[in-house]
């Protein structure tokens, strides 16, 4: 076998399940499951809880308590999970004791892929036959389109995991084309169950975020709050309606708190984008970070607070403008053997 020397992460990420016959025997897996269950009961006993009602979350908490670790990578910490999650799925041996394979397509090499294609094409032909029957009886054709907007097909890697064998890009694209053709037919909803196995929902980003309604204070003035952060700075902003555009930060005016023009421009940005410069008053508190980080944090907080005053379409515009996203840039860690995060020591020839 060829060993690749210079590889990228994408290439190295191989589907372990598809890489050949099993490395773990069934008996081994069974024994692991028994040991896991026994260990679960022991753990429940140790923690003083009831072994019968000990769930996976309890196990995680118990392990985190007994073996505390300061490692950043969650997957490097000690964990105790069911063997089916730990050991990846693998194909069982596909031939019997006499050496005769079980599946009729075994000698094609990609048996599950071709059997899948056969099944899908069978469904396709069924739908076409049904359609022909109905046109022969002169009944009108129903045109009910599936909602393709919120769904996507499985990716190549997901399909590989499902079939437990390697696919090539060409194979994958042919399969997707066949599925598209099937869905395009008028009576495809007969096979809806089958198609749903290969499609996934893609929720629109915005539906997850809940916009809070406006609150009203004593005088009846509407206001709303928002929180924001940038680097190490945390800010909370309260935006009042019917204002004159006055902004107070930590009790002082913005002219005094942010003498630099750049910071004040950052604060101006959400209001200018919505065209509401002189209409709102704002009172904010901010702590941590430096001058620029505090300005960015207040900007995010005020944009989040302004969402309650504004229509949904404008909220979507704000999101696309980047006003509602937390800036993920933080100071990068210094590595050993280098002077800074990226800078290496001066290279001396001798």
């Amino acid at each position, binding site marked *: 076998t060829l060993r690749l020397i210079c590889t990228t992460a994408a290439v190295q990420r191989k589907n372990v399940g598809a890489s050949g016959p099993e490395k773990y025997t069934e008996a081994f897996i069974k024994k692991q499951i028994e040991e896991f269950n026994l260990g679960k009961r022991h753990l429940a006993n140790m923690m003083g809880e009831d072994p019968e009602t000990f769930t996976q979350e309890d196990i995680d908490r118990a392990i985190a308590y007994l073996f505390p670790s300061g490692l950043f990578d969650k997957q490097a910490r000690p964990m105790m999970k069911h063997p089916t999650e730990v050991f990846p799925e693998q194909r069982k041996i596909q031939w019997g004791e006499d050496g005769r394979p079980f599946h009729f397509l075994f000698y094609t090499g990609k048996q599950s892929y071709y059997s899948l294609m056969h099944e899908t094409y069978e469904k396709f032909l069924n739908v076409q036959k049904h359609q022909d029957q109905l046109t022969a009886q002169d009944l009108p054709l129903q045109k009910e389109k599936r909602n393709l907007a919120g769904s996507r097909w499985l990716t190549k890697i997901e399909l590989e995991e499902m079939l437990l064998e390697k696919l090539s890009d060409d194979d994958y694209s042919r399969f997707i084309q066949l599925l598209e053709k099937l869905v395009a037919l008028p009576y495809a909803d007969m096979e809806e169950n089958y198609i749903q196995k290969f499609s996934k929902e893609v929720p629109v980003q915005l539906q997850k975020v809940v916009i809070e309604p406006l609150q009203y204070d004593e005088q009846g003035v509407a206001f709303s709050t928002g929180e924001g952060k940038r680097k190490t700075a945390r800010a909370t902003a309260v935006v009042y309606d019917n204002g004159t*555009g006055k902004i107070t930060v930590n009790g002082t005016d913005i002219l*005094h708190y942010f003498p630099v023009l750049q910071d004040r421009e950052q604060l101006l940005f959400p209001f200018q984008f919505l065209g509401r410069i*002189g209409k709102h008053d704002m009172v904010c508190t901010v702590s941590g970070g430096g001058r620029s980080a505090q300005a960015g944090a207040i900007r995010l907080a005020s944009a989040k607070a302004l969402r309650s005053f504004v229509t949904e379409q404008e909220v979507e515009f704000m999101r696309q403008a980047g006003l509602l996203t937390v800036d993920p840039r933080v100071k990068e860690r210094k590595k050993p053997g280098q002077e800074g995060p990226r800078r290496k020591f001066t290279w001396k020839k001798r």
Partner: protein
Amino acid sequence: QLDHGRALHTAARAGLSSVSTRDVPAERPRAVFHTSESDPAKHSEQHEGRLYNIPLEEVKAVFPHGLPYRFQQQIQTFNEARVMVRRPALELLAYLKGSNLAHPAVRYVIYGERGTGKTMTLCHVVHYCSRQGWLVLHIPDAHLWVKNCKELLQSSYNKDRLDQPLQASVWLKNFKASNERFLRELKTQKKYTWGKRESTEEGRPLGEVVEQGLARVRSASDAVGVLLREIKQQSHRGSFRLLVAVDGVNALWGRTTLRREDRSPVSPEELTLVHNLRKMVRNDWSGGAIVTTLSQTGSVFKPSSAHTPHELLGKEGFDALDPFVPIPVANYSPREFESCYGYYLERKWLQHEKAHTEDGKAELQFLSGSNPRQLDRLAGPL
């Protein structure tokens, strides 16, 4: 309040371009920001927020020194000097008009945050007084006398004190330019000896004292002291009215950045100029007024957040100036902001397309916080 010059102008244009009537309405809103009253004596509340013009010759005569640097640059750019009439200045003018000259001189202290227009208010008042015929003793910035002095001489008059020949001669030159008339009319009351050979007789015009100070730079500070004493005594008698206008009066008390040759720090009393000026600012004379400004910008050893008289003057200064009439100066009101913005637009100072829109105006107001200095700096690159 359309002034006559502009009304004629609009009528002429309307006559020429009879087709486009759009010109006439466009002219009128611009003229609202200006007023033709170039005599500060006639300014009143109806002129508040408007800009009035000072003819350039007057500017050279009345303000040889004393205008802020950026304002001088603006005069050069626009080829005219337009000063905004604001409420603190109107207040001060009302007090001055109603002040009784037989009483001891009242002290006014103009204070406020950075860049709100204290020096400009002072210049407005100085212009008014010079129009009225007062003798104006205008010290542009007292901070210049307590820092960055290259030469310090030991005073011949009093051995403890130190002279500053350069600053004194500069000030004498400017004083001469602004108050020529008085220097010819007023006479000395005593005989002054400058050195072994030079002396000024009694009864000579004060102009000679000034000439002496300019000619002999070593005795310039003493000349300044003599001048101040003479003026004070004579105004006390009531032959003319005196206005003492000091910008940055908090420099007179506090610390200096100067050191003697043996690296020991100098305190303000040991400087002749400061000593004499303190005597002027004391209200033991009558027949005039003392208008002063506090300034944090040029001050030494004071934190940048200090604005109030108490913080900037210190205990010593506060006691010395007490009692005084405080006059706070704030940022632009919305109306003043609009007129300043309109002026910049009219003079085509704001070139950016967006600056002409309403949104641009709101942005400028937000970013500058209605602070005059910030607005000026912002409008510069636009």
